[in-house]
C-alpha cells in the first residue's frame, strides 16, 4: 500500500512540475553562471590542481561540483510546496484520506529527486556544450542515478525543514543556511588536498564530498573500485538516515495542526 500511495503523491508532484516548466530554465541560470564565471575566474589554478593529480582544466574539475550544486539546491528548495500544501488545504485533503503519512513525504522526496536529476542533466549538457571533456558517455546514466540517490537525502532535509517550519521565511532562512556551507565544505570547487587540514577533516564528514568525488571519478574515468564502494556506502547511509528521519518528522509534524 505504501508503495502505491507514494506513487500517488509522486504522480501529483510530477504533474505539477510538468505544468510549471517555465521555472526550469530560470533555475538553470545560476549553475550556468557558476560554470562559466567561476570556471573561468579560477582557470589559472590549473597547475595547482594538476600538482595533486588531476590532469584537467579547472572547468572540467569543477563541473561535477556544479552538477552537485544543482542537485543540492534543487532538492533542498524542493520541499517548499509542503508549506503551500498545508496552507491551501491539499495537505488536509491528503491527511483525511486513507493514504499513509510517510508516503506523502516519500512521494514528494522521490519527485524532487527526479526533478533534481533532470536539472543536473541539463547542466551537464551546458558543460559539454562549452567544451568540457566527458571521457565515457555511457557513464551518463550511472551519474544521474547517483544524483537521484544523493538528492533523495537532500530532499529529506528539505521536507524535514518544511514540515517543522511554520512559515516561508523560516524555511528559506534554514535551507539557505544549510545549503551553501554544505556545498562549500566539499571538494566541489577545489581539491581537499590543497585546503587546510581542519577544513579537509570537516569536509570528510560531509556526504556532499563523497558525491562530488564519485561523480568526478566517473566523469574523468579515474574511479577506483575501493573508493566507489566507500562513496556509495556513505551516500546510501546518508540517504537511509534522511528518509527515515523525514518520514518520522513529517508524520509527527503534520499531526499537529498548521
Amino acid at each position: 500500500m505504501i508503495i502505491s500511495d507514494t506513487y500517488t503523491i509522486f504522480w501529483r508532484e510530477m504533474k505539477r512540475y510538468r505544468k510549471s516548466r517555465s521555472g526550469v530554465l530560470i533555475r538553470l541560470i545560476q549553475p550556468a553562471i557558476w560554470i562559466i564565471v567561476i570556471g573561468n575566474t579560477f582557470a589559472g589554478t590549473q597547475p595547482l590542481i594538476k600538482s595533486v593529480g588531476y590532469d584537467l582544466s579547472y572547468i572540467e574539475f569543477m563541473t561535477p561540483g556544479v552538477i552537485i550544486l544543482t542537485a543540492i539546491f534543487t532538492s533542498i528548495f524542493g520541499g517548499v510546496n509542503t508549506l503551500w500544501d498545508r496552507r491551501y488545504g491539499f495537505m488536509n485533503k491528503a491527511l483525511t484520506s486513507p493514504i499513509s503519512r510517510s508516503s506523502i513525504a516519500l512521494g514528494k522526496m522521490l519527485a524532487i529527486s527526479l526533478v533534481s536529476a533532470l536539472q543536473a542533466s541539463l547542466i551537464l549538457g551546458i558543460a559539454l556544450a562549452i567544451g568540457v571533456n566527458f571521457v565515457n558517455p555511457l557513464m551518463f546514466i550511472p551519474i544521474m542515478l547517483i544524483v537521484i540517490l544523493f538528492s533523495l537525502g537532500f530532499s529529506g532535509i528539505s521536507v524535514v525543514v518544511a514540515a517543522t517550519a511554520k512559515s516561508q521565511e523560516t524555511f528559506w532562512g534554514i535551507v539557505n543556511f544549510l545549503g551553501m556551507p554544505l556545498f562549500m565544505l566539499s571538494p566541489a570547487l577545489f581539491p581537499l588536498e590543497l585546503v587546510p587540514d581542519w577544513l579537509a577533516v570537516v569536509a570528510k564528514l560531509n556526504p556532499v564530498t563523497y558525491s562530488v568525488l564519485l561523480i568526478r571519478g566517473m566523469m574523468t574515468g579515474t574511479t577506483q573500485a575501493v573508493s566507489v564502494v566507500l562513496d556509495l556506502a556513505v551516500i546510501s547511509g546518508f540517504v537511509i538516515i534522511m528518509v527515515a528521519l523525514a518520514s518520522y518528522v513529517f508524520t509527527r509534524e503534520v499531526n499537529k495542526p498548521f
Partner: protein
Amino acid sequence: MYSIETKSLSKIYENGLRAVDDVSIKVDNGEIFGFLGPNGAGKSTTIMILTTLLKPTLGTAHVAGYDVVLQAKKVREMIGYVQQDSTVDEYLTGRENLELQARLNHIQKDLVKSRIDEILNLVELSDRQHDSVNAYSGGMRKRLDIAGGLLHRPKVLFLDEPTLGLDIQTRYKIWEYIKKIHKEYDMSIFLTTHYMEEADRLCDNISIIDRGKIKVTNSPASLKNALGNDVIVFEIDSDTKLESLISEIQKIQLVKDIKTNGEEVTVFSTNGNQVMPKIFELSLKVGIKIESISLTKPTLDDVFLSYTGKELRDENGGYNNKKEREKMRRLRA
C-alpha cells in the same frame, strides 16, 4: 448506530480558548445535519475533529461507528471532506484532480474511469474536464471540490461552508447539487454554514452554535414554530421608557419572546395580528411613540437572534469577520 455521535466534545486551545465546548450531537444515517453559527463559533474546529485533523481535548466522537482518535484510519476510509477554501490543484485539469482524488481514496482501478465520468456529469463539468483548473470560476472550483469529496462514495460527507463567498446564483446551484447527491448516494451530510437560508433549505436538523456551545438542536421548522408563527418588529423614538413597555408586552399571553437592539424591538408571538393592536395600546399608555412596525413570518435568522441575542448577518465580507477568521486560523496553528 448514528453516522456521527459526539459526547461532551471539547477543544481547548493553549491560550485557554474553548473553541468547542461540551458539544454533544447525534446525526442519523442519511440525515443532512447543519451546524449554524457566526464566524469563529467553533464550526470548523468541530469539523476538523470529526475528520481526524485535530484531537479533541475532552469528550469522544464517533463517525460511521469509529472513534475519531482511536480508529482514525477507519474514519478516513468512511468520510469525504470538502474544505472551506478550494483545495483543487490549479495546474492540473479538472479530470486530473479527480484522478488524484481517486488515488488518494484507493478507488479500485477498474472503477475510476466510470466514477469520474459519472461525477463530472453530475456536477456538469464534463465539457470542461480537460481544462486546467486555473481557468475555472469560483463556482466551478467548488463543484469540482464537491465532486472530489463524493468520488469514493463516502458514508459521511463533511461540507465546510460549501457556498461561502459564492454569488447567489452559484449558491442556488450548489444547493441543488447537494440535494441531488444526497438523494442519489444516500449518504449522511454534515455541513457548517452561517447562511440561514442554506440551513433552512438543506438540513433535516440543525444545531445553533455560538462561542463553541450548542444553543439548541432541532429541525428548522420546529425551531421556527417554537417562536410562534409571527415576528413583529417595531422601532421607537426613544428608549427611555422601553423597559416598562417591554414588561407590559411580556404580559400579553400570545407573546413568546422579546429581543431589543437599540431602538428596534423584535417580538416573537402567535397570532401577531392580534398582538399588534395591543402593542399600540400599551405604547400609548407608557408614552412611547412607535415610528414603524412590521409583521413577518419567522426565519432562521430570527431563531438565531432569539437563541443568541445577536443578529447573524447574511454576508461574509466585513473587516471584522475577516480578522476574526484569520485569528481562528492562527489559533488552530
